[in-house]
């Protein structure tokens, strides 16, 4: 579904991603692990089109997409949730979801009908709000919403476009255990026609949801395998678990 071949990115001589190849099958849940500065978020930028790779190729369903900008890739079905909340701060949660739903349903260029009353858009908003547990907070302004609700909305905006490929950058960063549980359930209930890449620091969650795990270090892939293999791998333990900075 997603093929990455020989991907590299340098910023003025600094190699952030080095000769990275990935193959993700349709419907897979792939967790990307790695210490800070390993190039995980840069990888997502390269996949989403917000950064141009220095070298390498990216294929989505066999189609080369390297030349496409972020807008075109989003239209091809790549959606993304951000590590740092990147929301429409002055609007309500409902309006946030409305924008995403209108874009996904091709209504963002319609000039006649009130989009806040459009049945398809309303239905999509309700579905997503249910999915990310925001149904009771819809009329709250994002700027005044709780941190947890904003994290939920961050994922909600990405889901509202009904993507083929969902890139989630530390969706549970900074939230408590109940929210992590809730998010775990959300992931389990996501239909398998969505392929998911997650950058995750929470080990329990990572091992719980992943079909396969890719470990990055200094921009290079140092390991790839099932959660069981990863747990037992010495290199991974050294560079990642050994640092002891995270939950596991």
């Amino acid at each position, binding site marked *: 579904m997603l093929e990455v071949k020989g991907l590299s990115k340098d910023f003025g001589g600094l190699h952030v991603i080095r000769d990275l190849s990935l193959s993700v099958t349709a419907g897979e849940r792939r967790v990307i692990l790695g210490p800070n500065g390993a190039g995980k978020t840069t990888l997502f930028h390269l996949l989403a089109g917000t950064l141009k790779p220095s070298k390498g190729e990216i294929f989505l369903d066999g189609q080369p997409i390297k030349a496409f900008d972020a*807008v075109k890739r989003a239209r091809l079905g790549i959606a993304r949730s951000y590590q740092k909340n990147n*929301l*429409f701060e002055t609007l309500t949660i409902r309006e946030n979801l409305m924008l995403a739903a209108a874009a996904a349903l091709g209504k*963002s*260029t*319609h*000039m006649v009908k009130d989009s*806040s009353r459009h049945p398809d858009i309303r239905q999509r908003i309700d579905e997503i709000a249910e999915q990310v547990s925001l149904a009771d907070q819809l009329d709250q302004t994002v700027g005044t919403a709780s941190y947890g609700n904003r994290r939920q909305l961050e994922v909600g*905006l990405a889901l509202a*476009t009904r993507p083929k490929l969902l890139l989630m950058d530390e969706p549970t960063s900074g939230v408590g255990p109940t929210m992590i549980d809730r998010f775990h359930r959300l992931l389990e209930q996501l239909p398998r026609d969505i392929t998911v890449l997650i950058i995750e620091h929470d080990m329990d969650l990572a091992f719980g949801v992943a079909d396969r795990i890719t470990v990055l270090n200094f921009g290079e892939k140092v390991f790839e395998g099932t959660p069981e293999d990863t747990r037992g791998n010495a290199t991974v333990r050294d560079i990642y678990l050994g640092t002891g900075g995270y939950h596991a």
Partner: protein
Amino acid sequence: MFYQTKFRSITLIAALIFLASYASFGSYFAREIVVEIIILAILAISLDLCAGFGGMVSLCHGAIMGVAAYAFAIMSAKLGWPLFPSALIGLLAAVVVSGLVGWVTARTNGIFFIMATLAFGQMAYTFFFKSRWLGGDDGMGGISRFDLSAIGLEMNNSLTFTYLGLGVLLLAYGLTAMVMRSGFGRTLSGIHVNEDRMKALGVNTAAHRAKAMAFSGFIAGLAGLIAAQHTLYISPELLIWTTSGEALIVVILGGLGTLVGPVIGAILLILMKHEISDYTDYWHAFIGLVLIFTVLAGGRGVFGQIEYWLNSLRSRHHDTDNHQTAGKPQGGDHA
């Protein structure tokens, strides 16, 4: 995001009734004032669409209005076309020029956008100012009035003309309100709040902004047509950047991003202008002080401030009742 709330509808209707009665009970001079208000209000609605919802603070809207007026005058008075197709060409010219400016400036933001639109507006102004064929700085006359006697309207009657102008104002408001409530308008607000996220949702934000400018050009073009029909004479003064500045003052005075605010702002500004001119020569200093005061007072404008008070009263009421409305949000002063 825009919502046509009850309060906005009531205020708009009240404003239109006020203008209609001011025109019908007042003298010929009162009707002149009302037409002046109508032109400025339509221009300000067009600018509010860009600045209030899209965050595109344009200083070329006067020029776009002028382009419509000149294109209309060229087609009808210079080339002898019938009035109706000439008017359509006028509107089309405004849409094209405005869309082009939007397209060229799509990658610029903030102060760069302001300066770029200022320069493009002055470019159009200079063009007409220097054009000898179009009368240069003397402007051009010879425009004839629409003949609507077939449907029983005598356009040379100042009261009929004023009523018709009010009709066009209502049309301009209605069209803009419709578009601002649509997926297109709400997406424009979204781009203003967070352009990067809107791109990530698959919206071509540059094209969207250019389209918004083009639509806004259509509305500004309506103001240009009324201006040309009103005096049957046009001059480059229509296009000069201070005309756009005056429209921006009206928008901020009435309430940015409310659409009704600009109508209220235009009424206030023009009435104040005529009242104060009776007492002093220094009308500009007065409007400068009003403008600075409006910005320092929070920048919500007269209508925006009243709406803000009403909304906070209402939400306090809701809080004490512990009664959550699941319906549409009432406010709209954010984006």
